[in-house]
């Protein structure tokens, strides 16, 4: 059984992507017998390219992939390079980490509520500083270049990239190298970039690629913050996919193939950027410039990351406030009154989505944790880890744009008669939850001192008893954290939920994004607040359980 675990994991990670890509490609080239497409042709692509503004949409997606990734990575590099090892660093790190669990949609809503012309920032500044008694008629949300959308993505990708960077630092002997470089007279940032960063970057490269793929094909954030005329590629595809005119599915599939092309182009461009920056780094590394006076740049790093963190936290606060707001006129800084009315009204409609969200997340995450444990235990027993190819497999669902294969997957489930079933939805969530659970748990698992297992075996404890009594309890904390990470990922899933659930299994996230079109801040506040609260509660439980269980075990306390 256990022996099959790695195969099963790879099947879950790769099978659906393959099936999905094929089932997307066939209709894209005209083949879809049920809809009358029995021969291959390019007509879907022709129709696709006749769509007004298609090229703009593709360009928006492409630039969003590159700009989002570059900006968030830059902020992370400057911050880590300039501040790692300091007290400020540790404090901010603790603040940023929980942001990983905030779903993209909730963060995007928060940002929208902050920076809209009638948003909180303008309300706080008006009329005293701006002299305005009415919101200015300026285009901030839905701006044609998608800058706000990219901003929303950047504030959410910074915590992700920061955390993967932090987990790569210990393997890179960051502190020693940095100190060595400083002793040679290099500035903090230059020393870090020359001596530590190349090694760190090698380890986090796949995660960076995942950010590119995500940002170039994102749907929910684009719906909430992105431009509409035209929208980026993926949200437009979703519109065609959901159109009652089923003929549009050919175009949607062709668009999905185009989306794949856009994401691949963004990745290839990134490889070129990598080369350029590597050459730049080599140049400065060899010409001996010390960049010792980097205080300003360090400050920029600190300010940017603080700003990004503040935006997300303030966004969450404003969501909470709107959810309990009575009438709130512009430019008042706070509502006239507070009431639980929005909650009371939303409550009946909330229950089903809430239940769906929790059940799907619990099931998908439990399965993911079990498969991850089985794979890692099998790794121990066979003495082999999968190596770098396995890492690629694990990252694969994060590297292929969701729009590229979830369409096909939906058709596949329809064919099986399993569309809009809980089973199908749990399965699709599993594809995206499994990588995150595996990534977050494999490091602590592999860092486990193998001598504990040797001691246990020496005491006559077999493989199974050692797993259940020694390895698992000692790794309970990271296992629960991995569970919480997986849970948060499942809660945040939008596209797979609406496509595979076909609207019949709504979750808090799919409902929240659907509500964005209404722009009713109170209801959105309620849903988005719940959306971020669910993962938060699970993280809290994940932290409390080991704390209670091991309350008298000092060595298992987090320091």
């Amino acid at each position, binding site marked *: 059984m256990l022996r099959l675990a790695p195969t099963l994991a790879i099947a879950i990670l790769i099978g659906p992507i393959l099936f999905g890509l094929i089932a997307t490609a066939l209709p894209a080239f005209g083949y879809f017998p049920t809809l009358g497409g029995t021969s291959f042709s390019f007509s879907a692509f022709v129709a696709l390219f006749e769509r007004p503004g298609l090229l703009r949409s593709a360009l928006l997606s492409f630039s969003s992939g590159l700009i989002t990734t570059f900006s968030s990575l830059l902020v992370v590099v400057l911050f880590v390079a300039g501040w790692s090892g300091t007290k400020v660093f540790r404090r901010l790190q603790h603040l940023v980490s929980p942001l990983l669990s905030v779903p993209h949609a909730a963060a995007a809503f928060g940002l929208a509520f902050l920076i809209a012309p009638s948003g909180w920032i303008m309300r706080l500044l008006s009329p005293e500083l701006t002299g305005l008694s009415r919101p200015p008629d300026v285009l901030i949300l839905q701006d044609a270049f998608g800058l706000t959308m990219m901003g929303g993505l950047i504030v959410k990708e910074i915590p992700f990239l920061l955390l993967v960077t932090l987990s790569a630092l210990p393997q890179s002997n960051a502190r020693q190298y940095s100190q060595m470089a400083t002793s040679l007279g290099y500035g903090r940032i230059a020393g870090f970039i020359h001596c530590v960063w190349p090694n760190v970057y090698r380890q986090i490269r796949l995660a960076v690629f995942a950010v590119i793929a995500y940002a170039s094909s994102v749907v929910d954030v684009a719906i909430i913050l992105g431009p509409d005329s035209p929208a980026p590629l993926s949200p437009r595809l979703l519109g065609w996919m959901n159109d009652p005119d089923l003929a549009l599915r050919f175009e949607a599939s062709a668009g999905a193939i185009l989306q794949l092309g856009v994401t691949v182009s963004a990745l290839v461009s990134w490889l070129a950027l990598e080369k350029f920056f590597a050459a730049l780094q080599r140049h400065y590394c060899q010409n001996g410039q010390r960049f010792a006076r980097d205080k300003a740049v360090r400050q920029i790093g600190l300010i940017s990351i603080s700003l990004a963190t503040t935006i997300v936290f303030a966004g969450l606060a404003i969501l909470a406030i709107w959810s309990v707001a009575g009438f709130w006129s512009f430019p008042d800084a706070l509502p006239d009154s507070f009431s639980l009315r929005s909650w009371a009204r939303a409550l009946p409609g909330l229950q089903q989505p809430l239940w769906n969200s929790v059940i799907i997340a619990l099931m998908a995450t439990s399965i993911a944790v079990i498969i991850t444990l089985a794979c890692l235990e099998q790794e121990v027993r066979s*003495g082999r880890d999968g190596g770098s190819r396995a890492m690629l497999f694990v990252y694969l669902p994060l590297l292929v744009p969701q729009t590229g294969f979830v369409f096909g997957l939906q058709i596949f489930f329809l064919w099986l008669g399993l569309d809009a079933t809980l089973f199908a939805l749990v399965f699709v969530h599993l594809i995206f939850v499994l990588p995150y659970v595996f990534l977050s748990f494999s490091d602590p698992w592999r860092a486990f001192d193998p*001598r504990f*297992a*040797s001691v246990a075996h020496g*005491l*006559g404890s077999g493989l199974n008893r050692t797993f259940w009594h020694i390895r698992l309890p*000692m790794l309970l904390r990271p296992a629960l954290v991995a569970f919480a990470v997986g849970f948060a990922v499942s809660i945040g899933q939008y596209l797979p939920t609406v496509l595979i659930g076909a609207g019949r299994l709504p979750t808090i996230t799919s409902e929240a994004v659907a509500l964005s079109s209404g722009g009713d801040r109170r209801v959105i506040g309620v849903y988005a607040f719940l959306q971020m609260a669910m993962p938060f509660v699970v993280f809290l439980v994940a932290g409390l359980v080991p704390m209670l269980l091991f309350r008298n*075990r000092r060595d298992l306390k987090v320091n």
Partner: protein
Amino acid sequence: MSKAAPFNDGLQLVDVEISLQGAPLISVSATIGEGEVLTVMGASGSGKSTLLAYLGGFLDPAFEASGQVYLKGKDVIQLPAEARQMGILFQDPLLFPHMSVGGNLLFAVPQSIKGKAGRKALVLEALENAGLADYFNRDPATLSGGQKARIALMRVLLAKPRALLLDEPFSKLDAGRRDHIRQFVFNEARARKLPILLVTHDQADADAAGGEIFHLSGE
């Protein structure tokens, strides 16, 4: 297959050879009688710990190893680690941090011994023996280095091993306690007539053990 007739009481290593990517690390044949100590000495990197790993059944698959190991006349290499009945002590006491001191010891009591009360009685006796009678419910993290070492030894012995593998078990103890613990370990082992394979780089360990000494070259 075996050249020498199996020796019936104690631990016998016949033509044990370990290499890494074709480079030979260790080649040893030895016999350790009941209550006797074989000390394997070598600098760090000489591969002395891989010998213990081979005997204990947790050798990294990167190494190639061959040779027989007989424990009371039975070849144990084919057995899984947990069936070899070879107790191991490492440099660190490696008490399981999620269990109490008593839990650690109970974990070691063989499953063949049934009955809650009986199992606990064995543990309490061992604690008494180690001079830590009231420590059953203690968090292992709150123990001193010497106390941890003693519990680790008691834990190994409770599992009723038929041989003892020691991997520099005294090196991390402070000098004042080292002698005391060393004597405690050897006395307890001898009292149980256990063959001991001790791996160390400390001459004092070898002297205290008093048995045969095998030097690894270690390039």
